[in-house]
């Protein structure tokens, strides 16, 4: 066979192979294309970059998908819903509440109203609290800085305007943990996005909080809170712990782990925020790798690589170089759907019959009441003899 180009540029690398001894002339020969940088079509056509090699599963239209994680995970959750997949939401607003108001108060952003979960230990502790292994101390609340209301330190920005009393907050928290347990127990696929290694820990309880005290509520006291930058080992342990604890109530659940490509907003370490970002994301990426390699039915989805790869030339970040642009999320979801689904993502899953019925009952009740009030008010005018 005449070779007209260098060996490493041929479509199929054919080297000299000793057929008798089954030895290659070098160990790279015969490896798949995707293991070679030069073969990556994304270098010239960025939108074609697809780093998923062996998808571990295929989703059905009705696969119950639970989402949790950092702010980037909100994109995944929203796009799954919009594409008609069964993003399982167990903590819905009362059917009386309009959709706009419910969304503003973070219902439906994730499967339950936990807000952003940035850190693997925060995740493990949420699961522990939901299952009932760990109790939240009574009265564990923050006073808002801006308004006369109370905040839940575990999810301080979950409800604009906060809670009117600690008792209301605790009642809502109880309902929320029940909904979280329901999500955990019924998930068929659990997608978790790791976000940060830096966190603030309540010294007395060991609880990891998503926001530093004093930012939106509570008061920072060094005696009460400590800064922690979780190590690789700690991140692996807590992520693995969360997965195993979820499996204790839901043995069949599949996990998909991702790492958020959103850089740190701020670092408490005395170094440049971008340096901290690199270290943090490296730890998270390694932790994801170790856990996914050691836990069954747990795989990694390379959304981090899609967004941060040099192939995109930075186009997947907005002008602040931090928030992910829609074009980047589009690419991530395209790769996700191409690899993990066999169904057309545009085919919508119908809202459950129960939900449709409940909404209709609410609408009917509201219309009837308004009509009755209108008649009553007209009668009031008639009673005065003026109509």
């Amino acid at each position, binding site marked *: 066979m005449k070779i007209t180009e260098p060996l490493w540029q041929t479509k199929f690398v054919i080297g000299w192979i000793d057929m008798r001894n089954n030895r290659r002339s070098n160990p790279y020969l015969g490896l798949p294309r995707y293991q070679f940088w030069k073969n990556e079509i994304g270098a010239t056509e960025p939108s074609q970059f697809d780093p998923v090699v062996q998808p571990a599963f295929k989703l059905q239209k009705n696969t119950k998908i639970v989402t949790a994680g950092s702010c980037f995970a909100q994109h995944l959750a929203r796009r799954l819903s919009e594409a008609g997949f069964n993003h399982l939401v167990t903590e819905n*607003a*009362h*059917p*009386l*509440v*309009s959709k*706009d*108001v*419910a969304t*503003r*108060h973070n219902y439906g952003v994730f499967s339950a109203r936990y807000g952003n979960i940035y850190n693997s230990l925060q995740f493990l502790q949420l699961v522990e609290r939901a299952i009932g292994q760990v109790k939240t101390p009574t009265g564990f609340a923050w006073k808002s800085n801006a308004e006369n*209301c109370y905040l839940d330190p575990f999810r301080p920005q979950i*409800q*604009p*305007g*906060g*809670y*009117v*009393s600690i*008792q*209301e*907050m605790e*009642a*809502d928290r109880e*309902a929320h943990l029940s909904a979280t347990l329901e999500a955990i127990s019924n998930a068929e696929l659990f997608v978790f996005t790791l976000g940060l290694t830096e966190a603030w820990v309540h010294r007395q309880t060991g609880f990891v909080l998503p926001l530093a005290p004093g930012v939106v509520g509570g008061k920072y006291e060094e005696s009460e809170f400590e800064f922690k930058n979780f190590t690789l080992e700690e991140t692996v342990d807590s992520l693995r712990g969360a997965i195993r604890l979820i499996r204790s109530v839901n043995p069949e659940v599949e996990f998909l782990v991702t790492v958020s490509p959103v850089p740190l907003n701020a670092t408490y370490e005395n170094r440049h925020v971008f340096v901290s970002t690199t270290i943090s994301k490296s730890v998270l990426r390694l932790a994801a790798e170790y856990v996914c390699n050691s836990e069954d039915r747990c795989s990694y989805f390379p959304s981090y690589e899609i967004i941060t790869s040099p192939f995109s030339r930075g186009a997947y970040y907005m002008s602040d170089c931090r928030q992910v642009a829609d074009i980047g999320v589009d690419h991530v979801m395209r790769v996700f759907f191409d690899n993990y689904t066999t169904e057309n993502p545009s085919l919508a899953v119908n809202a459950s019959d129960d939900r449709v019925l*409940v909404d209709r*009952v*609410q609408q009917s*009740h*509201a219309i*009837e*009441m*308004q009509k*009755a*009030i*209108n*008649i*009553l*008010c*007209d*009668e*009031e*005018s008639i*009673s*005065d003899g*003026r*109509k």
Partner: protein
Amino acid sequence: MKRQKKALLIGMSHVVAVQKSLAKQPFDWIDIIDLNARENLFNNNTNKIYWSKIDKSYYSNVFLSLRGQYHNVMGLVENPVPFSTGECEKGLVPAVSSAESRILIPSQVLQDHIDNEISDLQLALIDQAVEYFGQHGTAIVNSPPPILSEKHILEHPGIFRAKLRNGITPSSLRARIYELYTNVIENRAKKLGIGMIYAPEDSRDADGGLKLEMRSQDPTHANENYGALVADQIRNWVDRHA
């Protein structure tokens, strides 16, 4: 001779109580417009008041009692999916017992929902009124407090007789819904830079509802005794802001 300017109270059914209270004697300091009785001024279907038909030059002060029943629309009859909400001192209303299964709607969510629901109706009319009459001398007259007595409602169900088979919303919850509704109206008044007249304290019983002697013979309206108190409030407001 320069005509003395009057006050104007404009609204729907809640102004009737004030009209009745003043009807026993001549009054020349206020005009009262019940829009439900003035089809030439108000189109309920389009939520439009024909403001230009009201000569604003007659009036030194304008008092708005526009719509104002949403807290009863939402709260009088038990919702098909019963709910509870938070309250500052009581924690939750109605208090969740082991016998009840209610879905909690945090009070801020409920207040935002109320705001959303009345935005295109009551709040839009208030905005229109302020745009026409201006901020100066304009105030909202809040709706009367709800009638919290179940006995009264059952004895005077009116048009709600059939609906009441679903049950009356517990009084503590209805009181709270009225508070949240009042917050929404108050916020709007502050945003527009206009005044607000709250329900007279003397009209309220220990639970914050309308006293027996203030109630009309239906589940939601106040009577002329209440109207007299509101008329006094309006008169005092005019005198203070003259």
